């Protein structure tokens, strides 16, 4: 993650002046999906970039040390070695950006990553994920404990009560949603958020990161997300320091696409290691 930025004074007038032309945003969202197809070796390269931006996530009620270990191993070796060799990318340190787990599982994740000899950060969801409706005291304690256990990134759930009453806070990244809502990361929402990031950058010079999460399952989608970032913010944001994709099954689909690019065949599920 980039160095912690200073931020600016909260100026509520910025927020009240915001106007969103919703029909135009919807049109742009539709367009962006068809306008920039990426093919062949460009696609392979972009997909690898997407892999390096994934926060490989598991947030299930039945998470235990064993599936966390499998996840961490997959985070270190997201794409099969021989496929990477064919693309001459086997020595570029292709790993996912982070591993994202519940606070109680942070210990297991840190241990598993250490055993695998991997230094990617462990991100923890905290603050009463996903609803955020717990006491401030316990939420702060949760964050402290997670950091103590070794998490270096925290996905904070904002207090919607405060938002709806206009009391805002700052952050290093903004995320579309917890990923556990009925509607999560959609392009219209993303366009508005990206434009806000751009405006903030133009006004203050500070770069805020973006993380869509929830419902991003196909490799094709990840390409559209990358091109959306490229179109709206530019090449600098297309890196794990400023862009993360919160996903779990996405990695499998990307790996299958890369398999297809390298071998010309469609893989069966058992051909590729599971996460």
């Amino acid at each position, binding site marked *: 993650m980039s160095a912690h930025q200073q931020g600016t004074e909260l100026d509520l007038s910025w927020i009240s002046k915001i106007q969103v032309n919703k*029909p135009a945003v919807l049109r742009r969202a539709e367009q962006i999906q068809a306008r920039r197809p990426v093919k062949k070796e460009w696609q392979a390269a972009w997909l690898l970039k997407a892999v390096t931006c994934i926060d490989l996530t598991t947030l299930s009620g039945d998470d235990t040390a064993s599936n966390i270990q499998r996840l961490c191993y997959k985070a270190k070796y997201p794409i099969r070695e021989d496929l990477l060799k064919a693309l001459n990318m086997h020595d570029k340190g292709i790993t996912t950006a982070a591993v994202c787990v519940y606070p109680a599982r942070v210990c297991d994740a840190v241990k598993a990553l250490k055993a695998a000899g991997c230094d990617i950060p462990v991100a923890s969801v905290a603050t009463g994920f996903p609803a955020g409706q717990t006491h401030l005291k316990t939420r702060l304690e949760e964050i402290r404990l997670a950091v103590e256990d070794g998490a270096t990134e925290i996905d904070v759930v904002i207090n919607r009560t405060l938002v709806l009453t206009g009391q805002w806070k700052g952050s290093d990244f903004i995320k579309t949603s917890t990923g556990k809502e009925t509607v999560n990361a959609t392009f219209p929402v993303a366009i508005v958020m990206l434009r806000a990031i751009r405006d903030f950058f133009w006004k203050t010079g500070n770069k805020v990161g973006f993380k869509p999460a929830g419902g991003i399952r196909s490799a094709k989608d990840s390409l559209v997300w990358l091109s959306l970032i490229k179109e709206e913010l530019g090449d600098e944001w297309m890196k794990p320091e400023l862009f993360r994709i919160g996903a779990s099954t996405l990695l499998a689909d990307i790996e299958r696409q890369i398999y297809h690019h390298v071998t010309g065949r469609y893989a069966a599920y058992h051909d590729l290691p599971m996460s």
Partner: protein
Amino acid sequence: MAATRTASRACEIFTTLEYGPAPESHACALAWLDTQDRHLGHYVNGQWLKPEHRSSVPCQDPITGENLASCLQAQSEDVAAAVEAARASLENWSTQPGAFRAQHLTRLAKAIQKHQRLLWTLESLVTGRAVREVRDRDVPLAQQLLQYHAVQAHTQEEALAGWEPMGVVGLILPPTFPFLDMMWRICPALAVGCTVVVLVPPATPTPLLLAQLAGELAPFPGILNVISGPDSLGPVLAAQPGVQKVAFCGATEGGLRLLIQEAVWDETMRRLQERMGRLRCGRGLDGAVDMGARGAAARDLAQRYVREAQSQGAQVFQAGSVPSDSPFFPPTLVSDLPPASPCAQAEVPWPLVVASPFRTVKEALAVANGTPRGGSASVWSERLGQALELAYGLQVGTVWINAHGLRDPAVPTGGCKESGSSWHGGQDGLYEYLRPSGTPAWIPYLSKTLNYDAFGLALPSTLPAGPETGPAPPYGLFVGGRFQAPGARSSRPIRDSQGSLHGYVAEGGAKDIRGAVEAAHQAAPGWMSQSPAARAALLWALAAALQRREPNLVSRLERHGVELKVAKVEVELSVKRLRAWGARVQAQGCALQVAELRGPVLQLREPLGVLAIVCPDEWPLLAFVSLLAPALVHGNTVVLVPSGACPIPALEVCQEMATLLPAGLVNVVTGDQDHLTRCLALHQDIQALWYFGSAQGSQFVEWASAGNLKLVWVNRGCPRAWDQEAEGAGPELGRRAARTKALWLPMGD
């Protein structure tokens, strides 16, 4: 396994994250051209027509210059053959029940769907446009057009009872046009029962492909015929016996003018330049490209414009990734162009945008309306009231609010001023190809001996002609709300049916016409802003006044040989018509619901502006009133030339109008009909001209009105049965007296 070359490329791309090409294969387009041995002819009556001894023109890829095929240049015989085929199938096609035609159009839509890849590939290859534009916008819209018009055909018997298809329609298209322009026009024509002959410039294969798809849908092969030939064949097409109407589409540049309010100038320019930087130019058939190229000629035009603009002091910004080889031209933003410079007046070529600042809404309207172009515009504002003020005030055919470029088959698209006077799409588009039932077919009558330079030029001199018998009629030209002396200071005698002198009327001339038009323009803003109810009230008051004058009017008509009974009917009908039109106009305007858009599209009926009317000799009072009423009630201000033989009843009506109507609303100029017609037809600031005189006069009016593309309605010398409801007070009059503006209001927050 993948080659090492791609492997190392992947490494590189991982760092640069550039887009690569996403080429679409044009094999299918070439394969289709091969079926014609790369030598395209015409498509007539369901078959390819390749007459011998014709010259041919190469069809080239606008980007690489590669020769794709050669296209025949037609000659007059080919045009005649095509019109003959269209005529032969007309009887059959137009007498089919609407439901049958609807089905046929749906089948054509399905045929397009089945071959859409071929269609978009061919179009993109030949015109150089970005394939995603053709694939995602044009082809689906073409299918929607067919579907929409199929529905219209289906309901034609009930919804359009009283109207019949015109007949064979000719269509002339300009050198560079999207095939969609052709679809906009042929769909309504075919739907209502007309058959079509299209004259396309050579080197445009897409219409031929469409004709082939249509022709293969037996059993109506001859309804769509396509000839490729030079535009010198246009008059040949128009003169063919049987062709009832020729629609033509001129070439338009694709550039835009952007008016930005000063307060948001910097912010807007910054965002615009940022976005321009992301645009990608490239070969049209690359799926990842935003814009293609339109050939060397278009690029040179753009180049010249930019150079001239710079020499006139403008700032030029170009961006986007553009291949350095010709004929690509980068998207360009021109700003700081002085408004009086020639570049600011000229049409902006593609792909340029000229940005100018403005301070207030009033200024913006003045700048935007200050060009002869009146096609479409978009208004971007978060304040609804302000946006609507601009939308209503802009003199264009279509306005989008907070959106741009939206099109739908159900919304009429037209223009005003020099952007043309016809509509496509929606109901208005259908009426273009319809005429009231029972109207006789138009026989082409072109007098080769008509001297356009001399028509109506000379004014006959008038001399005293004997004693005036009976009460003298009101004297003078009714201009600006009162009777004025004519500029020429002479008069002409009006003789009654016995041959004795009924009275003298003023001899109006060019200066008087000028004055009348000015007076009409002055009265226009006030009249336009009146509500329909207010206008109706005035017409009712005029009707009551005429009723009071009945004995006077009857006696004037009797002196001209009209029987007492008939004269009474004439006056009665006139009164009735005034009241009827007043009532009719109260129910106007409607909102459409358009597919794929959330929010309404308002169809506003707007007045044309100043309407000039030359009245016929038959039914001198009734025709005068029947034409005046619809024109007025739709918000126009009027300049009338009453019947030459019997202008006096009209002058009597003027006396009433002097007290009742605002000054300048109605202006009546008496005098030599041909001379006054000439003045009106050549006047560039009249928005429409209705002429009910001689055949020669009709021809002159149509020729002269091309100067400012004013709307024209002529009778070609045929008298009209003004006493009949259909001809004297039918919906045709109402349609012609106003134009439609489409106002798009996408919703969403």
